[in-house]
């Protein structure tokens, strides 16, 4: 059998010069069972479309798919998270420990202060509890400081008299103004 015509068509096919009809002839030719040995190797090229067109999902496809899905581990159900209102008390909770520590230290400090410095009733131990470093001298010369100190004590001593005299003077002035 002479396959020259088929070979010519193939030549044109490789050069992309075949028409639709000529390609149809090639497809029909290569769809037959017995092909010459030299041309059999091109069969898959022309029967490919036909073979693929015949592929369909099996009737048991759906069943198999559902079965496969059923074998998969079930995803964890969605956890419903509800918005929670954070109160001020809860927000400050981390500070509780610090506050407790401060309270303890303050308490111990105060207790120590009182135990070391308290003056028992009737005791002669010093009760003076002021911060010595808070006092800054106005005068560095002891003589001058003495004079100023004595002036203050003198004023302290005369305070009642001075105040009384002032109030008496004010009273007499008021009386005069009333007259």
């Amino acid at each position, binding site marked *: 059998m002479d396959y020259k015509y088929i070979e010519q068509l193939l030549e044109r096919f490789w050069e992309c010069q075949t028409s639709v009809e000529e390609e149809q002839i090639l497809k029909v030719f290569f769809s037959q069972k017995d092909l010459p040995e030299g041309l059999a190797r091109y069969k898959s090229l022309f029967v490919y479309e036909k073979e693929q067109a015949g592929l369909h999902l099996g009737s048991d496809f759906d069943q198999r798919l559902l079965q496969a899905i059923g074998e998969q581990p079930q995803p964890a159900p969605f956890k419903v998270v509800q918005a929670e209102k954070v109160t001020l008390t809860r927000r400050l909770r*981390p*500070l509780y420990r610090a506050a407790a*520590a401060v309270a303890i230290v303050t308490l111990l400090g105060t207790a120590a202060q009182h135990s070391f410095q*308290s003056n028992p009733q009737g005791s002669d131990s010093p009760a*003076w509890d*002021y911060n010595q470093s808070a006092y*800054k001298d106005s005068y560095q010369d002891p003589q001058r400081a003495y004079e100023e100190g*004595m002036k203050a004590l003198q004023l302290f001593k005369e*305070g009642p008299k001075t105040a009384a005299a002032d109030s008496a003077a004010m009273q007499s002035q008021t009386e005069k103004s009333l007259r």
Partner: protein
Amino acid sequence: MKQLICTLIAALLSLAAWGQKEQDFASRFIALYAPGTSLQCTTVSPLMMERLLKLPKVEGDSTTKQVLSQLKSIRLAVSPNPAEAETLYANALQLAKQNPKRYKLYAEEEGKKLYTRSRGRVIVEIVLFMKHGEQFSLINLTGNMNGTFLEQLSGI
């Protein structure tokens, strides 16, 4: 870690506050009301008081020595401005009244108030403030004083 740092800071602040100890009336008064006024304060510190006791003039006068030995500090705050006397007096009175547990009224006369602060039987602070003439004066004595101190003081 943050809590630990906070705790340490708080502890240090507490210790620092404890170290501050007490503040006398005059220093509180000056801090509160002196700004913007002509109030002038003269201070004789506890260290200077110790030096005063060694002065020959004091060593030779037993009454003065006895009085000064009971004192730890003297503060004299004076405002010569007549316009300020009334206000400063009212402020001093208010400050004393705001601390009724601390300062007890010892004596009063027209234009003069004498407050004391005691610890046990010991008078640790005497505060006298008055408006006399046209000026305001505040005398603040601290020390370890007893009941007879005021009598001794009048004997100087």
